[in-house]
Every structure is written in structure tokens, then in C-alpha cells.
């Protein structure tokens, strides 16, 4: 008689997957991917940023598959991204050329180009709008059409070019209040192609921060701001808008500046924070100048971009006192896929290691050989 192994695992998994689908459809409605794409901008922007893959369509499908669970959706997108070949690299983008939809500064009352509130929750009252339950598609389209008419008229009277609004940071730069830098043409280190080692360089840090899990980045930025960091920032400029992307002509061997192809726009949130720092001049005198903390994210992720700008500056200014200035502490613990993966791995069976621990615990209770010799 031959013994065979009990095959429970495969079946258990199959049933679990079925059960998961059951949870998604049991209320007898199926969400349309298009509806997600149209109405869940916030979640789409968040997962695009955390997965560092810009595709509203793919994000929408992932969100449907994950039933809105951002941890799972980001996981799906990252795994997808992992298999994609790199066909082109865009030219470096100048955010001066952003088509601005929203743009504010906390540092100055008035700025060249003006404070443009744009689409923001900041000025809404957070009261649940129960009218949304009965909102019909027709009502929404009617409202949309009349609003678009108004927009069209106002565009004809605009006196600023939304494509070339000056940067607030240039005001400080002109006055000489910012640290001076030579513009760098160094190639950034792609952290998805080569794992980071310490000490990291700024391009690596910024990449890890922008891909960071939104909650984690905000929490740590909050800690740095509130008590556990040496930063006193003011938001110099926050802008949200579309950035045009260009690739060098793939068919030409020579590279001219004008010989480039426009491939589309992405929406980003960019924050430049001003942080005063004490510096020692060559003559020995101490002065205060401004550091810039930089934050940028795919999509409209304002809180995350602000927190990122704080943490960027924390990591630029080592300080043994605070963990928020420690690059290993910050950079190794904010990635959604890594942190949720390791955390959830605790659900995996650990009974072998536990058995080993039991053995050790029992031994220590027995006392071992030398415990009597050691007083």
C-alpha cells in the first residue's frame, strides 16, 4: 500500500480565491473600470504615486481588482511595472513649463502670477453631502456643460499664461537668499535598476520618497515637523498641473535640442519649501540662508508632497538627535510594497522557528550547565 501526501493546500487556495471574488460581487453590483477612472481621482493619484507608474487606466483596473485597497492596488501596479522594458527616457522636465491648475505660496501674500486656488478640498466644509446619493449622470453633465461654457469665456480674457508662471523660488534666488548651486547634469541613479547603498545620493533619496507610502511619508514628515526633527519650513510654492514630456528623436543619431517628440502630459504636484538654516561664511560670520526642501509626486498628492519636501531637507542635514534625519531610518521603511509585505509575512507559518524557540526557552528554564557557576 502506498501512502500519499494530504493535498489540502491547493484546494484551500482555490477556495480562498473564490471567496475573495464572492466578497467583491456579493452585493450584486459590479463597478465599471471607467467609473473608477472618472470618479476616484484621489485613489488613482495615490496609487500611481506609490507605484511610480503613471497610468490612470491601469490604476483604475488595479483599484477594481483590489476593491479599493491601496496596498493591493500598488502591489499590482508595481509587479506590472517590474516586467516593462524601458523603451525611452524623457528629457529632463522643467517645472517652469507646467500648465498650472493650482498654485499657492504660504511665504508671500502676493506672488507674480497670483495665488490660484484651483481644485482643492482645503476650502470645503467637511460635511457629508447626502445629495450625492441621488446624483444622476444627467444632472452632472448638465452642470459640466454650463461650467465649461463659463471656462471658455474666461480663458479669452486671461492676462496670464498658465504655461509660464514664474517660480516663487526665483524671487529668493534673485535676492541671494538661497544657497547657490551649480546646475548638475549628472545622470540620476535609478533605484529600480540598482538597489540603494548607504550613503545615498540625493536623486536616490528623492526617488524613494516620491514612491513612499503616502501615510508613512506624511507620518514621518509630521514627526519631523512637530517635535522629532530640526526643520522650520514655510511652503514657498505648491503647484499642481500638467507637465509636458519630451523624448529625444528615436530615429536620429544626432541630438539637437529642438529635435524632440512630445509624448504627452502627466499631472504632478510639486512643492518647494523654504527652510532657514544657519551657515558659516568664509569670514567666520554666521548668517541665515534658505534651504529648499523639494517634494514631487505623480497626481495631486499635496500632503505627501509637502511631507516629502520636509523629509528631503531632513535627510540633507544630518542630525544625530532625530531619527527623521537618519537616512536608513526613513528610506528603508516607507516603501508600501516592502513594509506591507514584511508585516504581512508574519501571517506565514512560523512553527518551525517557533519550535526552535520553544526548545531554547525550555533549555533556559532547565538552567544549562553553567548557571550554578555564575553567581
Amino acid at each position, binding site marked *: 500500500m502506498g501512502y500519499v501526501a494530504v493535498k489540502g493546500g491547493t484546494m484551500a487556495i482555490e477556495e480562498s480565491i473564490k471567496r475573495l471574488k464572492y466578497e467583491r460581487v456579493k452585493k450584486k453590483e459590479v463597478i465599471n473600470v471607467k467609473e473608477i477612472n472618472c470618479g476616484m481621482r484621489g485613489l488613482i493619484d495615490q496609487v500611481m504615486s506609490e507605484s511610480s507608474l503613471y497610468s490612470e487606466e491601469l490604476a483604475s483596473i488595479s483599484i477594481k481588482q483590489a476593491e479599493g485597497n491601496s496596498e493591493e492596488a500598488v502591489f499590482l501596479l508595481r509587479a506590472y511595472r517590474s516586467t516593462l522594458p524601458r523603451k525611452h527616457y524623457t528629457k529632463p522636465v522643467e517645472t517652469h513649463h507646467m500648465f498650472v491648475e493650482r498654485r499657492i505660496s504660504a511665504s508671500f501674500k502676493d506672488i507674480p502670477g497670483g495665488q490660484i486656488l484651483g481644485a482643492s478640498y482645503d476650502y470645503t466644509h467637511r460635511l457629508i453631502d447626502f445629495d450625492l446619493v441621488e446624483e444622476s449622470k444627467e444632472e452632472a453633465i448638465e452642470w459640466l456643460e454650463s461650467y465649461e461654457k463659463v471656462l471658455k469665456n474666461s480663458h479669452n480674457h486671461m492676462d496670464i499664461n498658465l504655461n509660464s508662471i514664474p517660480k516663487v523660488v526665483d524671487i529668493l534666488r534673485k535676492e541671494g537668499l538661497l544657497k547657490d548651486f551649480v546646475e548638475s547634469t549628472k545622470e540620476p541613479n535609478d533605484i529600480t535598476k540598482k538597489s540603494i547603498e548607504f550613503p545615498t545620493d540625493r536623486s536616490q533619496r528623492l526617488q524613494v520618497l516620491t514612491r513612499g507610502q503616502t501615510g508613512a511619508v506624511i507620518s514621518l514628515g509630521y514627526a519631523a515637523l512637530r517635535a522629532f526633527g530640526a526643520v522650520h519650513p514655510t511652503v514657498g510654492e505648491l503647484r499642481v498641473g500638467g507637465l509636458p514630456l519630451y523624448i529625444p528623436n528615436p530615429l536620429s543619431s544626432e541630438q539637437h535640442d529642438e529635435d524632440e517628440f512630445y509624448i504627452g502630459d502627466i499631472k504632478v504636484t510639486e512643492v518647494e519649501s523654504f527652510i532657514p538654516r544657519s551657515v558659516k561664511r*568664509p*569670514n*567666520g560670520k554666521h548668517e541665515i540662508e534658505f534651504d529648499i526642501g523639494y517634494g514631487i509626486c505623480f497626481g495631486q498628492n499635496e500632503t505627501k508632497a509637502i511631507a516629502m519636501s520636509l523629509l528631503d531637507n531632513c535627510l540633507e542635514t544630518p542630525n544625530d538627535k532625530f531619527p527623521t534625519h537618519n537616512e536608513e531610518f526613513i528610506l528603508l521603511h516607507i516603501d508600501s510594497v516592502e513594509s506591507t509585505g514584511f508585516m504581512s509575512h508574519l501571517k506565514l507559518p512560523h512553527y518551525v522557528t517557533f519550535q526552535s524557540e520553544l526548545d531554547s526557552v525550555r533549555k533556559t528554564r532547565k538552567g544549562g550547565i*553553567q548557571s550554578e*557557576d*555564575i*553567581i
Partner: protein
Amino acid sequence: MIEFENPILTINNLRKQYGDGCHHCIDLEEDALEKNYCVKCGTIYACQDVSFNVYHGEILGVVGESGSGKSTMMSCMYFDQEVTSGEAYISTYEDTNLFNVSSQQKRYIRNNVLGMVYQNPLLGLKMDFSSIGNIAEKLISAGCRNIGEMQLRGQELLDHVKIPTFRMKEAPKNFSGGMQQRVQIAKALSNNPPILLLDEITTGLDLSVQANVLDLIKKIQRELGITMIVVSHDLGVIRMLADRTIVMLNGKIIEQGLTDQILEDPQHQYTQQLVYSLL
């Protein structure tokens, strides 16, 4: 022909600066600096061409106020910081400038050739490990792999510094300041280093505790014949311990000689001030 005994430790032109220096100060001419820094560029010259010898079995005192460069010099000698330039030779170790050896060799020297006791016990001890564990750390670094041996040696050392055996398993964070210093001394002696560096080890302790620790140092020197360098801003401590003394001010050695001679007949104006304030 008088034969001079070879020094066990030689320091030549040790220079430590914070800052890049500028044309005004880089040559360290007379009057280029205000105290120990350059007004033009803000560079601080913590140690300027410090040179001295230490002879086998003696205690060399290093006295100076804060900012004199004495602690910087010690931390450079123990490789806690990198020197800007300079040479160090230990006669019982290879004939090579120790400031240029590999990090592996520096670790070896810190474990076996130099012992260090810091003013702040946090720097010299692992506060969350047992006292005997702290000593074992050094023994393990030297290659010991025998628990029994390490326990014996640890007990022996703790005994020497008057730490009762029943406190052996306790972590130093539970000890008083004076006891922590004694554990540090025991740890520094674990591998019988020929040279012991003591940096302001009694500063901050109660006077009676200070006296205890100083007595211990004298006892160690008597019984083990270890060469020591004792840094202190307190001339009283120096007088008690040191055979010879060097006086530092603003990063330079301004006077050196037999401790008794310096106390009786100080030459430099600053040394005179120090001595008169003592008496």
C-alpha cells in the same frame, strides 16, 4: 655617549583642523590666528603641529583648558577622528605611521595596543550589556572563544577595580558614575595594552570618588607598569599622577617637562597662571 631610551610612543606634527583653511592661515605663521581659529575663513586649528614622546612605564600628563586641543589630540590618537596630517609610532607595534594604516589594523590597535577611558562612560561602554559582557567584548575581539577564561579574566579585572563580583552581570547603566568609570578602566585593561589613554576621567565625579579613581590609576601603574597618558584640565590631578607633563594652549604645546619642574618654575605666562591658581 649618552644613550637615550627609545620612546614607546612618538607623535610628530599632529595637525587637526576643522575647515579648509585659506591662504591667510594655511601656513600657521605667528599671529595668523586668533586663538586657534582663522578670522578670515573660520577654520579652526584644533591641534597645530603637536609633537611629543612618551617613554615606557611613565605617566604623561596633558593639561590645558577646554579648547586647548588636548581631547582632540586624544581622540585622534585613538582613531575616533581622522587627523589632517601627522605621524604616530608605537615602538612595540610595526614601524609605520599609524595614522595611515588600514581600518582593520586600526581596530587591532584599539583592541590590543591602546586602551582608552573616556570622560563620558557612554562612549566607552555598551550600557545595555552586562559589565562582564563589556569586558568580554574586548577579549572576543582579541580572539578569545572560551567562556570560562573570559569569566575568570573578567572577574579578575573587576576585582582589580573593586567592583564586587555579584554585580558582574548587571549593566553599567545601573551603576554610579564612579563605578562606570571603573568598569571602563577594567575594560580598557582587558587585553593588557601597553599604553592606556585617560581622557578627563575624573571630571564630573564627586571629590571622594575622584580620589578613589585616582588611587586606582596609581595602583594600576604600580602593579602593571603600564604607560599612560592622562588628560586633564585640573592641574591637581596632573600633579598627583604625572611624571612628565605637557601644557597645551590653543592647539599648541607651550611647555613641557618634568611635572615637578613645571610646578616649581613655570616658564610660559599661561602655565604660570595655571600654577598660581592651583597654589
